[in-house]
C-alpha cells in the first residue's frame, strides 16, 4: 500500500513541477474556469502588494481572501509552489484513513454482491488519492496556484478529523473552512450526525445526551469561528474584510464569467429583481441541508459528499477545483456503479464541455466571432451534467439502501421479476 502511494505522489508532484516550469504556467492562471475572483493567485499577490504600499487590501475590490490567508502567504510567498503541492498531499493523507469509515458500513444481510470485499476496501484510499491528485481539474487548479486548493485541503482535514472522531479538531477545521468561504457551513449537519453516530448517541429529541453533545459541538464550532474572525480583526484592526469577503460572496458584484450559473444570470438581470433572485439563488445552496440531513441521517459520509457537490454546483464563484473535490469521492462509491442510470451520458457531456470551454471562450473574447451566449450555453450544459451526476449518485445510493433491506432480486406478488419505481 505504501509503495503505490509513494509512486502516485511522485508522479503527481512531477506533473505539477513540469507544468510549473512550462509555458502553460502563464496561461493557466488566466483561465476563468480555473480561477475565480475569490481565489486567483494574481489577486493574492495584488493584496500583498497593497499591504506593502500601506493600503488596506480591502480598500479596493480586487482582493477577497480572508486576512489569515494574506498573512499566511506573507510568510510563505517564496514557497508558494511548494505550499500548493503540500496541500495536494494533505488530501492524500485524508483518504488513507477513510477506509475505516467505509468498513463500518457492513450490513448483516444476505446481499453479498452489494457488500464490498475487504480487498476492494483496501484499494479505495489509493483510488481516491489517484482521482484527486491526477484529476486534470486539480492539476490545473494547482498550477494556477488557486487558493481553492487550500480550501479543499481544509475540508479534507475536516473530513479526516471527523472520520477519526476527534470532535474538537473537526469543529476547528470546519470553522476554518467556513471562515474561508461561507458555504461549508452546511457541512455542520453531517459532521454532527457522524460524530453522534460514532458515539452511539441516537438522534432523539428527548435524549439529553443528544442535546449535550450538539451544544458541545456547536459551541466548539462557533468558538473557533469567533476566534478566527477576531484574530482577523486584530491583524488588520478593521472590519472591512467582512463585507469584502462575505459580502462579496453573497451579493455577487463581480460578474466575471466562470463555470457557474450566477454571472450571466445577474449580468442580464432586471435591476429591481436583482435582490430577490440573489436571495433565491443563495438560499438554494443552503436549503438542501435540511431535507438531505433528514433523508440521509444514517449516512453522514454520503451526506458530506452531497453537500460538497451541491455547494460546488450552486456556489457563486465556482471553479474546477471545487468540482475536483467532490469528484475525488466518486471511487469511494464504486459499489453504486451498477445502479447508475446515465453515467455514460453524463461523463461524455462533462468531457465535451471541458473541452468546449476554452474553445468558446477563445471565440468570444479573442476571435470575436462568437458572443457571450456561446460560453453561457456551455456553462448551462456543464451544470446540467453535474446535477445529473449528483442526482444519479443519490438515486443509486437510495436504491442500494432499498436493496440492502429488501433483497437484491425483488419479486412481484405473482412471482415475476419486479421493477423498482419511485413513488
Amino acid at each position, binding site marked *: 500500500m505504501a509503495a503505490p502511494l509513494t509512486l502516485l505522489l511522485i508522479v503527481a508532484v512531477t506533473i505539477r513541477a513540469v507544468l510549473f516550469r512550462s509555458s502553460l504556467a502563464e496561461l493557466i492562471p*488566466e483561465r*476563468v474556469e480555473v480561477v475565480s475572483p475569490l481565489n486567483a493567485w*494574481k489577486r493574492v*499577490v*495584488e493584496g*500583498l*502588494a*497593497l499591504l506593502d*504600499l500601506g*493600503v488596506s487590501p480591502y*480598500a*479596493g*475590490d*480586487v482582493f477577497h481572501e480572508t486576512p489569515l490567508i494574506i498573512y499566511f502567504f506573507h510568510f510563505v510567498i517564496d514557497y508558494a509552489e511548494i505550499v500548493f503541492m503540500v496541500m495536494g498531499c494533505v488530501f492524500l493523507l485524508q483518504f488513507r484513513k477513510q477506509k475505516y469509515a467505509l468498513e463500518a458500513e457492513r450490513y448483516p444481510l444476505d446481499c453479498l454482491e452489494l457488500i464490498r470485499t475487504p480487498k476492494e476496501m483496501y484499494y479505495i484510499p489509493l483510488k481516491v488519492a489517484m482521482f484527486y491528485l491526477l484529476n486534470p481539474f486539480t492539476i490545473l487548479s494547482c498550477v494556477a496556484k488557486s487558493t481553492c486548493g487550500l480550501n479543499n485541503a481544509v475540508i479534507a482535514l475536516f473530513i479526516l478529523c471527523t472520520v477519526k472522531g476527534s470532535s474538537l479538531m473537526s469543529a476547528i477545521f470546519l470553522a476554518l473552512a467556513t471562515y474561508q468561504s461561507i458555504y461549508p457551513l452546511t457541512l455542520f449537519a453531517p459532521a454532527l450526525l457522524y460524530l453522534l453516530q460514532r458515539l452511539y448517541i441516537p438522534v432523539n429529541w428527548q435524549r439529553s445526551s443528544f442535546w449535550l453533545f450538539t451544544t458541545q459541538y456547536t459551541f466548539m464550532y462557533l468558538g473557533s469561528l469567533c476566534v478566527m474572525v477576531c484574530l482577523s480583526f486584530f491583524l488588520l484592526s478593521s472590519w472591512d474584510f467582512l463585507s469584502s469577503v462575505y459580502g462579496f460572496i453573497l451579493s455577487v*458584484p*463581480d*460578474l*466575471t*464569467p466562470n463555470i457557474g*450559473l450566477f454571472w*450571466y*444570470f*445577474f*449580468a*442580464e*438581470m432586471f*435591476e429591481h429583481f436583482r435582490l430577490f433572485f440573489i436571495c433565491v439563488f443563495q438560499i*438554494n445552496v443552503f436549503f438542501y441541508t435540511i*431535507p*438531505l440531513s433528514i*433523508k440521509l441521517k444514517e449516512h453522514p459520509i454520503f451526506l458530506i459528499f452531497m453537500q460538497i457537490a*451541491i455547494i460546488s*454546483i*450552486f456556489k457563486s464563484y465556482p471553479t474546477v477545483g471545487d468540482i475536483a473535490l467532490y469528484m475525488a469521492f466518486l471511487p469511494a462509491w464504486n459499489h453504486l456503479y451498477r445502479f447508475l442510470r446515465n453515467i455514460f451520458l453524463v461523463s461524455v457531456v462533462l468531457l465535451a464541455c471541458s473541452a468546449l470551454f476554452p474553445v468558446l471562450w477563445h471565440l*468570444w*473574447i*479573442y476571435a470575436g466571432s462568437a*458572443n*457571450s451566449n456561446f460560453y*453561457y450555453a456551455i456553462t*448551462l450544459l456543464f*451544470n*446540467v451534467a453535474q*446535477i*445529473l451526476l449528483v*442526482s444519479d449518485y*443519490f*438515486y443509486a445510493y*437510495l*436504491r442500494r439502501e*432499498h436493496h440492502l433491506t429488501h433483497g437484491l432480486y*425483488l419479486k*412481484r*406478488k405473482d412471482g415475476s421479476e*419486479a*421493477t*423498482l*419505481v*419511485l*413513488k
Partner: protein
Amino acid sequence: MAAHRCNIFMLVFVLCGLTYVFVRADIEDTNHVKDAESVAVDIAPKANIGASLRSTKTEDQTQAAEEERQWEATEVKEADRVPDTMQTPDVPPLTPAKDQFQEELVIRPLHSGDIYASFQFRTMWDTDFLRGSKVSHYRLFPKSLGQVISKFSVRELHISFTQGYWRTMQWGQPFLPSPPGAELWVWFQDTVTDVDGAWKELTNVLSGIFCASLNFIDSTNTVQPSASFKPLGLGNVTDQRFLRYAVLPREIVCTENLTPWKKLLPCGSKAGLAVLMKSEKLFHSSFHSQALHFRPVCQDWKCKSTVWELRQTLNVVFDLHTSGQGKREWSLFKMFSRTVTEACPLASSSKVYVDVTDNPQGELFELSPTTPLLSQAVVLGDRRTYSVYDLTNQATFGQTRSLNMLLRWRAAESGDMLRPLLHGERYVAGYGLQTGEIHTLMYNNHPYRAFPVLLLDTVPWYLRLYIHTLTVTSKGRDNKPSYIHYQPSKDRLRPHLLEMLVQLPPNSVTEVTMQFERALLKWTEYTPDPNHGFYVGSSVISALVPSVVAMDTNSTRECPLFSSFFPCKEESSYFMRVYTEPLLVNLPTPDFSMPYNVICLTCTVVAVGYGSLYNLLTRTFQVEEPSPGLAKRLANIIRRLRGVPLL
C-alpha cells in the same frame, strides 16, 4: 444710463491711477535703466509680485508669464496714455468695488502651418462673500456664476471643455493645457462640512449653466489627487479633502457650450474681442478648448487684501494651411469671418498680440498693419517677442475703423521648432477582451538635465488595475518612483487613482506599464453603443521643467551682457502640465437582446437540480405493480356496482 456712463468714467480713472501706481512700482522695483525712447522693452522683467508672494513650487508659471506680459504692456501704454490721464475729468473716487475687466487675444503661427489663437478675459471681483455677507450687487462679474460660487463656498474652480487633442510635438506647448472632453476641479473652502454633497450639487448646477453633461460626474469618476492639483490662487490650503477632480473624456463640446460661456463676459459677444467668436468658425478647427478659472489673487503688490479673479480662456487651432489651398497666409477675417472694430467699453485693457519671435527682421512673413509696439515675455520657459495692438487706442483701427491683421508668409518653410522638453503619450496594449496593459510614455527631451514629474492616472473601476504589475523603466532600467499614492477602486463606487513621482533622466523615454482586467458589466451599465468602447480620461503629467532660456547657452543671440551670465532663479524652471491622449477600451459585452431567455434558461437549470433532488427526497422505492388496462378498470367498476367479484 447716466449711472452706467459714470461707472465707465470711474473705471477709466481708476485704471489710469492703477497704471500709474504699477509703473511707479516697477521703477522702484527694477534697477534696470530704461531707455525712454525705446518701445521695445528688452529686459526680462523681475518676477511678478503676486507670483513671488505665492510660495508654492507648483505655481502656475504660465500665469506669472501672463502677468509679466501684461505688465510690460502697461508700461508701453504709459508712454502714450499719460496725456489722457491728465485730461481725464475729475470723477470723485467713490468706487467701493474695484472690479476690473481685461481682454486679450494672442495669435501664434505654428510651425505646422496652423494658427493658434488664444483669447483670455479676466474679470476681477472685489467682494467678500466668505464672511456671510450676501452679495447682491454685481457689476462686471457674472451674477449666475457669482451666486453659485458663494452658495457652495468655492475657493477655486477650474473647468474646461475641449474638443480635439493638442498635438504637443507639432504645435509646442499651449498657454493653458486641457484634456479632451470636460475637466472640472474645485477647491472648496475649509468651512465646508459636506464636501461630497456640495460637489454633487455644484456639478449639477454647473451642468445647467454650461449646458454640458457635468451631471454625469459622480463618485465613480471623482478623485482627490494628493499632489497633482494644488491651488493656483492664494492660500495654502493643501488638505486634499477639500479638492475634487473629475474628467469626462466622452464629452462633446459644441455651440451650446460656447453660448453660455460667452454670456459670462461683461460685454457678451456684442463688443470687444468676443465679437470674433463665431461658432461656425470656431468649431471648424483642429482644436477647440474653452475654459474658466476662478481663484483668489492679490489685489495689490503688497497683497494686503485678496480679490477674486475669473479668467475665461478660449484656445483654437485653425488648420488654414490645408483649407487655404496650400497658401500660407491668414487674417483675422479668414479665421473668424469678422474683424475687430472696437474694444469692449468695460475693459480696462484690450490687446491683440501676434507672436513674431521667428521673424525678427521680417524675412519670414509680413504682418500688416504694422504696429510700433513690441513686447517680450518669457512664456513657458521660452523668450518670445510679440507685436502688440492696443484696441483701446483708436489709432490702431486706422481709417477703416476696423482691425484686420493679415500675415503673409514669404518663405515656404518656417524654421525648426524647438522640441517640447516634456511630452507624454499613452496607449493600450494587448489583444482580446480579457486583459490588457496601459502604457504611458513620458519623454524628457532636455539634453542634460533630469527633472521629476508627477503622474496622475484615473482609471474607471471596470478596468481592474493590478498595482503589483506596475513597472517604470527608463533607458532600459528600472526606475523606482520615489512616491506612490494608490487608491484602489471600489466596484460601482470609486475609480482607481494612481499618483507617482518619477525622476525622468535627461534625453530619455520613461515607460510606465500596468496590467488590467476588463470586467463584464451588468447589461444596464453599458453606454449606448457599447461596442464603441469606454473612454478612460487622460493621465496628467505635472512637472517643473527646466527653462529653455536657462538651457540656452548659445551666445550668439544678442542680449545685454549683464543679463546673460547667471540665469536667474525665476526663469530656471517653470511649471508645466501635459495631458496624454484619452484611451478607448473595449469591454466584453453580454447579449443585450436576451435577458428573458437567460432568466428562463438559468432558472430551468436550477429547477432541474431542485426537481431531481426533490423527487429523490420525497419519494420512496416501491415495487411497480402493473396497472390494469382501461377496459379492465371499467369492467371492475361495473362489477363492483353489481356486487360481483372483481376480475
